[in-house]
Structures are given as C-alpha cells and as structure tokens.
C-alpha cells in the first residue's frame, strides 16, 4: 500500500458549517504535498481531518490504513500535527514541554533531547518558560515535539509562519529529513515561492474542496 492519505468526497462539519464539502485527495508515501488556497478554504480542517481530530461525516477517508469513518482515534499516534496553536504549557520550560509531550507520545527521553538540539533549543532557551518565548521560539518548540515523536505522516499548518530565515531553512530541512526517513508530509502555506521549492507537488484547496494536478478533478465532486 503506497497510499498514505485517500479521501473520497469527504465532508467535514464544524458545528453546522461544512468546512470540507466533498474532498478528493490522494497522497502517496514519501511525498511532500503543498496545500494552497485562500484563508477559509478548508486547509486547516483538511489537516485536522487527516490527524483524526475532526469527524468525517460523509464520504470515505483513509489515512495510514486507518478508516477514519469507522474510528478515527487509531491514526492519531501515527501522525504529527503542527497547528496554529502550539499546544504548550505556558508555565513549563521548553525542555519540560518537549519531554512531557514526547513521553506522552511513547518516545524516549533521548529522542526529546536530540529534538531539542536539532531545533537549536538545547542551550539557555531550554530552561525558559514557554510563556516568555517569542512566537518563532514557540513554533520551534512545537516542531521539536514533532521531531521527537517521529510521526509517519507530518501535517504542518503554515510551518513557515512567524519564523526567521534560519527557522524557515530548518523547517525545509526537517521536511526533507522526514521524507528521507520514510515519512510523508502534507503542509499548508501561503509562502508559495519557498513552499513550491520544497514540495513535490501542490494542490489547491477552495470552498472546502480540492483541485490539483493529481488525481481528483473537481468535476467528480457533485456540485449542487
């Protein structure tokens, strides 16, 4: 099975709002796929749906061999999601956050320490409470947690946002490393120049549907 993500006419409701209105999407193993599209197009929801956080109410959705319609929980330990919010405890230090979350993800402490080093957080910053960090440093901390957990599918929502030049290069490096290690990456970005350079292909998300080069034309989606 080479398909990591396979969505067919997937509908996802946030309250009464159809954030995804019939998505067709295929991502093969080892790909880096860029989601582009205007704000509110459904990129964030698509990533969260892949992570098994939001329910798919219609259509088919299969991620890493898990049928999300049947039970979306088993996919969660297998993916790493970098969302708009970092998911950090403000009063704990950078190192404490990374260690807690990697322990919660069944990773070793050595993985956590290696991840801190990889993101350049092993120095003085490691002992600083997260509340005192800048937006970019929070982002790095969240990325360190992802690195420590070694997910099979990376789901990154605007990974370049709030980062400086060095940080952005680091993110691109992380994506390349992840794919080299056999993982798959799906990410959303507005910084198309940088993102298209690193992505293998890009798809456009609009109005809760996906259109792209491969393999699902919008025409297949029944438009009322």
């Amino acid at each position, binding site marked *: 099975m080479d398909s990591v993500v396979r969505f067919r006419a997937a509908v996802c409701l946030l309250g009464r709002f159809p954030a995804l209105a019939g998505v067709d999407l295929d991502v093969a193993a080892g790909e880096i796929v860029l989601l582009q599209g205007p704000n509110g197009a459904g990129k964030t929801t698509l990533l969260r749906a892949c992570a098994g956080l939001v329910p798919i109410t219609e259509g088919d959705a299969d991620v890493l061999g898990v049928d999300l319609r049947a039970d979306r929980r088993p996919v969660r*330990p297998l993916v790493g*999601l970098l969302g708009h919010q970092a*998911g950090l*405890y403000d009063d704990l230090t950078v190192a404490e956050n990374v260690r807690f979350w990697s*322990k*919660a993800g069944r990773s070793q402490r050595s993985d956590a320490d290696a991840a801190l080093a990889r993101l350049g957080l092993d120095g003085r910053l490691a002992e600083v409470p997260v509340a005192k960090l800048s937006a970019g440093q929070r982002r790095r901390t969240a990325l360190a947690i992802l690195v420590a957990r070694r997910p099979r599918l990376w789901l990154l929502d605007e990974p370049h946002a709030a980062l400086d030049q060095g940080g952005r290069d680091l993110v691109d490096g992380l994506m390349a490393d992840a794919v080299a290690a056999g993982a798959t990456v799906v990410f959303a970005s507005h910084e198309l120049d940088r993102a298209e350079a690193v992505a293998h292909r890009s798809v456009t998300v609009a109005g809760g549907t996906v259109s792209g080069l491969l393999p699902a034309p919008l025409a297949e989606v029944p438009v009322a």
Partner: protein
Amino acid sequence: MPELAADSMLRDAATVVGKDLRLEWRSRVTLSQILPFALLVLILFAFALDPDRRILEEATPGLFWLAVLFSMLLAIQRAYAVETADGVIDALRLSDLDPAGIFLGKAAGIGLHLLVLEVALFAGVTVLYGATPRGYLLLVATMLLATAGLAAAGSLYGVLAAGLRVRDTLLPILMLPVVAPVLIAGTEAFSAAYAESSGDGWKWCGLLAAFSVLYLAIGIFAFEPLLEES
C-alpha cells in the same frame, strides 16, 4: 511489547500528575491564589455569623467543608484551564496517553491540591474558630475519602465543562448538586470527630468511600467520550 491496560493507565496517570505538580511548582497558582482565597472564606464566615466563638465552633465542620467546596471549584477551573489553553487539548487527544490515565492523573493532581488546601483550612479553623477535634483518625480518614470523591467528580465535570465558552458559570451548577452528599457526609463525620464520641462518623465515611469508588469508576469509563468532544 504486550502491556496490561491497567499498567499503562497508571503510568500515564503518573505522567500527567507529575506534569501538573511541576506546573504548580512553576506557577504557584494554588499556593498563592487559591489557598489565600480558602482562608479568606473562613474569615468571611466569621464576619457573617458572629464573632462569638461558640457559634463558629459549633458550625466548624460545615464551614470547613463549604470552604473546601468553594476552593475546589477554583482548583478544578485551574486544572482544566491549563489543558484548554493554546490547543493543549488537541495535543492530548493526539498523544498516546490513555484517556482513563489522563482522568486519574488530573484527579490525583486535583486531589493533592485539595489535600494541601484542607490541611491549611484545618489549621485555619483550629486557630480562628478554636475548634479542637477528639478523633484524629476519623478526621484524617474523612479528609482522605472525601478528597478522593471530590477529585474524581471534579476531574470528570472539569473536562465536561472545559471546552465550553460558559465553563466558569456552568461548572458550579453542574458540580455542586453532585457533591452535596460529600458536603453532608464530610460535615457529619467531622461533627462526630469533634464530638466526644465518634459514633456515626464511620458510617458517613462509608458513604464517602462509596461515592469515591463510584466516581472513579464512572470517570475511567466516561472520560474518553468527554475528552473527545470538549
């Protein structure tokens, strides 16, 4: 590696409670805000009732547990405020942590905070109201059992209210009728412990124990769907 479900549940509980204690150590919200509030409640009771020690002394068991309930609401709100800020609750759902383990860990964290509050409140009623207990064993047993029940119910109702915009106002109305039996049993058991003979006190401890076991069991099974939807 095959692993017993109970083992991973307890280990996850330990991870969560360890994190919560570290959070308290760094932020000191309970020690510097909730604890003073609890003691303030004792002083306000004295203003409301009478400076006459006799009335306060007689009412000590009830006032003690009322102060515990009020501070408990703050402790629960604090315990789940840290889990809902900054998308942490998503991270919890995405983690490998057993939901039952998270429930027990949060309950243990709330329980430990409550015990600290209760010790301080006990010192408070002893000094301020001049109440001296006779049956220390009954007193300690009541505190431990009541705390377990309050912590279990608090952990459960805390996550129920956690994701809502109206959580601060909804939590008390959901929580207080449920823990009313703890208030009754705790007060009656304390009355016995402060009186000459501990008489009916142990019967009330039995009720507290049943309450705790029941809510721990409900929490272990019901926490998952609640965490999923909050």
